[in-house]
């Protein structure tokens, strides 16, 4: 009898393990994430109704018509795919009609101001109860928000971003979407909200935990932070390196992007700031890996594209590294890169 009970318990554990391993990831809409983050922080956050949030009849009616369009679809929104060709021809046709509807009634509607258009699409994007992890309707709304490139959306994006970033992996895709909308806005050095972006993304660098989160978000976060840092005159390199020192899983992504950004712009001041940063040994190891990976024979950055100033900074850094760390002599690839940089400077 004991053997039977024991076997049953083992079977149950195995079944539960299988279920947990294979169960599909839950899909989180932005409104769900915002509600959850409100609960987590103990705030009394409730989902804002789109209609009451809007003070104009025009905006409310446009929002209603968008919702009706989605709800009248002859298929479930969660069954759609953001890449058009993955949908059936009839679904593609309906999605195309949805795009045309937005284009005609919102994007090209001369009675709506840029801010009103933005408010309609942002309200839909943020507050509609999106279902499915690859929702085509949501992707179309996001695409049009990107087309608007409205800088007045920056405070909304940063606020929403900050609210959901503590939720970690489950909010990563939504944060990627927010970064894409932010990335589409042209940076104006006069915009007082630029500092909001720098503050939000500095904090984001510290809050990214896992390697997969860093892979998903690290490139865009460091790129946008770097660009907004330039526009506000804030040197963001020390923040990036500090975040790398504190998180070995994210470090390689951060250092790789910071290094490539300084090289692509041949920004020798920022490159100098990077190599002179207060790096931990693991961050330094990552930087060495990044240098050899990008500057090797068939790497992503041709040495011939670099300015003499940039080459000289890397050369001096590597001179110091090889003299301080005898183990690096075994790193053939890095030695070859160092040799090529030295030759290019002669």
């Amino acid at each position, binding site marked *: 009898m004991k053997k039977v009970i024991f076997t049953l318990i083992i079977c149950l554990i195995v079944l539960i393990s299988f279920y947990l391993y294979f169960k599909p990831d839950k899909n989180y809409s932005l409104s769900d994430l915002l509600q959850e983050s409100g609960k987590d922080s103990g705030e009394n956050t409730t989902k804002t109704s789109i209609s009451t949030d809007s003070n104009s009849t025009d905006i409310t009616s446009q929002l209603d018509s968008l919702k009706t369009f989605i709800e009248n679809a002859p298929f479930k929104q969660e069954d759609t795919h953001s890449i*058009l060709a993955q949908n059936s021809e009839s679904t593609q046709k309906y999605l195309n009609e949805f795009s045309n509807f937005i284009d005609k009634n919102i994007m090209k509607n001369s009675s709506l101001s840029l801010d009103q258009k933005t408010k309609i699409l942002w309200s839909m994007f943020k507050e509609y109860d999106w279902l499915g992890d690859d929702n085509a309707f949501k992707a179309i709304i996001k695409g049009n928000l990107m087309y608007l490139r409205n800088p007045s959306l920056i405070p909304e994006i940063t606020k929403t971003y900050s609210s959901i970033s503590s939720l970690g992996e489950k909010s990563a895709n939504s944060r990627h979407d927010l970064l894409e909308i932010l990335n589409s806005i042209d940076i104006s050095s006069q915009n007082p909200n630029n500092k909001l972006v720098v503050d939000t993304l500095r904090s984001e660098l510290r809050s990214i935990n896992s390697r997969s989160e860093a892979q998903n978000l690290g490139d865009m976060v460091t790129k946008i932070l770097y660009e907004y840092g330039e526009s506000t005159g804030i040197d963001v390199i020390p923040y990036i390196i500090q975040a790398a020192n504190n998180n070995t899983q994210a470090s390689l992504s951060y250092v790789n992007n910071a290094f490539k950004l300084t090289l692509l712009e041949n920004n020798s001041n920022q490159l100098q700031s990077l190599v002179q940063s207060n790096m931990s040994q693991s961050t330094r190891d990552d930087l060495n890996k990044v240098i050899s990976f990008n500057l090797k024979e068939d790497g992503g950055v041709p040495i011939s594209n670099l300015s003499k100033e940039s080459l000289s900074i890397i050369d001096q850094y590597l001179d110091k590294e090889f003299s301080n760390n005898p183990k690096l002599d075994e790193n053939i690839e890095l030695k070859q890169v160092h040799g090529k940089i030295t030759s290019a400077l002669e």
Partner: protein
Amino acid sequence: MVNFMNKSKIVIASFFVLVSSCINAAYTPSTAVSYAVNNYNLPYSTTSNPFINVSGVGGNCTNFANQTISSGLLGITNPKTLNQNLLSQSAAVKAVQNTSVFYKCNTVGNTCQTIAWRGAQPMFTYSANSQNLQSKGVRLNLATKTTLVNGTLSPLDLSKIRVGDIVYLDFNFVIGASNNSVDHTAVVTAVNPESWYDVTQKMKYNNIKLTYQSDNKTNRGLGDMNAPAIYIYRPFV
């Protein structure tokens, strides 16, 4: 008389060699990447991106990938300038285009642009056969692909992938089926180093970053695309 004709032929041949050497087209991946990441989020309109919008006939993924390839071949990163150049059908444009992949006017139709310009599967077929082409124009080399070995698809050789490469994805590949076709085209816009922490195939694939249109996306990990069959090609002239 025969001697004079031979001399004329030599002169004419020298002229063509001179013209073709002046054109000197090559694919520059950094230019292509710059085009992709800076323009993937622009709407199709005369003021921003004048190329024809084919979202109503399957999506813009291949249309945009071909704009990117042309950008890398002609050294132009602005969509309006690139469009004007292609429409002009100048000698430089003719040197990188051919009867199989061209773009001549801003309306949808086979005389304005080939189906390989607009569709993922026709462009994939063109890429796969382009090395055997006798005519001039852009060709694509296979860099790596998922290959059927003993009934399963082997993974990509990630070390072969470079920025500027063109990616074809088949989301519903069926082993043994004769009617498999690719569904989507994207551009490799970043290749990141592999970390100790990249323990799964998906994480390794996610070091390859894609930019594409259809759903307009940049910096999307190849692993997150969840495509079983993937083919990577590298343009050249």
